[in-house]
């Protein structure tokens, strides 16, 4: 059975593209006759999947422990405010030298700031109120940029 693309609108996956670096003839044959794997390859794939699962779990536990970003600490990982600040960081700050310097400084100082915040409910509340003003400013800036 001919192989179809895995992505939307006939998108090609990075893995399918990577096969071009191994054997182009194999890509053609897999397209004509369907993907086939040996028993040995199946075992290798299972080992790879297990290793990837462990690799992901290591990453998740590491990220969960850090709690070093103030917005994540105050609003939560998936809160709208956190997403706006992330968008502002990626779309505005990281695109200029001064912005990258500010982001770097923030990453270095935020873990200790977060450690103080989690110990004081009043400080957490005050930071939340302050950050909401910052988020509103960021939203306004992003909206103006999109209009231009």
């Amino acid at each position, binding site marked *: 059975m001919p192989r179809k693309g*895995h*992505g*939307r*609108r*006939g*998108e*090609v*996956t*990075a*893995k*399918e*593209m*990577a*096969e*071009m*670096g*191994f*054997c*182009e*003839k*194999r*890509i*053609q*044959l*897999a*397209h004509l*006759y369907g993907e*086939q*794997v*040996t028993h*040995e*390859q199946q075992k*290798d794939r299972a*080992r*790879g999947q297990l*290793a*990837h699962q462990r*690799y*992901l779990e*290591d*990453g*998740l*536990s*590491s*990220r969960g*422990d850090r709690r070093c970003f103030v917005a994540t600490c105050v609003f939560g990982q998936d809160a709208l405010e956190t997403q706006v600040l992330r968008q502002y960081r*990626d*779309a505005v*700050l*990281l*695109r200029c030298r001064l*912005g*990258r310097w500010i*982001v*770097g400084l923030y*990453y*270095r100082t935020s873990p200790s700031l977060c450690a103080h915040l989690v110990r004081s409910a009043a400080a957490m509340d005050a930071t939340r109120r302050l950050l909401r003003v910052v988020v509103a400013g960021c939203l306004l800036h992003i909206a103006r940029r999109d209009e231009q």
Partner: protein
Amino acid sequence: MTPSVVFWVAGLVLALLLGAVWLFRRKGSAERRSRPPELARADLVYMEETFRTGGPLWMVAKVDRVYRLPDGALVLVELKTRRRDRPYLTDIIQLSVQRLAVAAQTGASVEPYAFVSVLDTAGRLRSHRVHLLDLNEIADLRRRRKGILDGQLRPAYATSEAACRQCALRHKCDRPRLS
């Protein structure tokens, strides 16, 4: 026992505890130990996430890990399990497509190099720095792939015949001198 002795013993215990915490943090998590040394100060920002290039390339890539360097640039890391501790051209192409997709979707600057972390059968993890292909090279490869699938271009065979011995499609292959 005088109060000053109690004070000094308590201070010593506290110092030992702080030392233990410092040693534990220094040793770090499994994630920290698995990082290439060049990413020691970077932040892990994406894991197992899918990114898309959009048109005209229409490619999609799932990243293993993406780190953000202190200057804001992103660096890709791909995990591979294999017997030979070395990166291959297939890794470079895969990471190059990931780079284009992450850059297109996030608008962030992605470094033109990446790391292939190879986990061998003994459980040792070693990272190799690789230089990635640029947009034009990937676009050419994308066009070539389409040409091969459409039957307009003649496909090349694997550079090593040893690779063919492990191919499940070798019985359908017309490669000359294939035993």
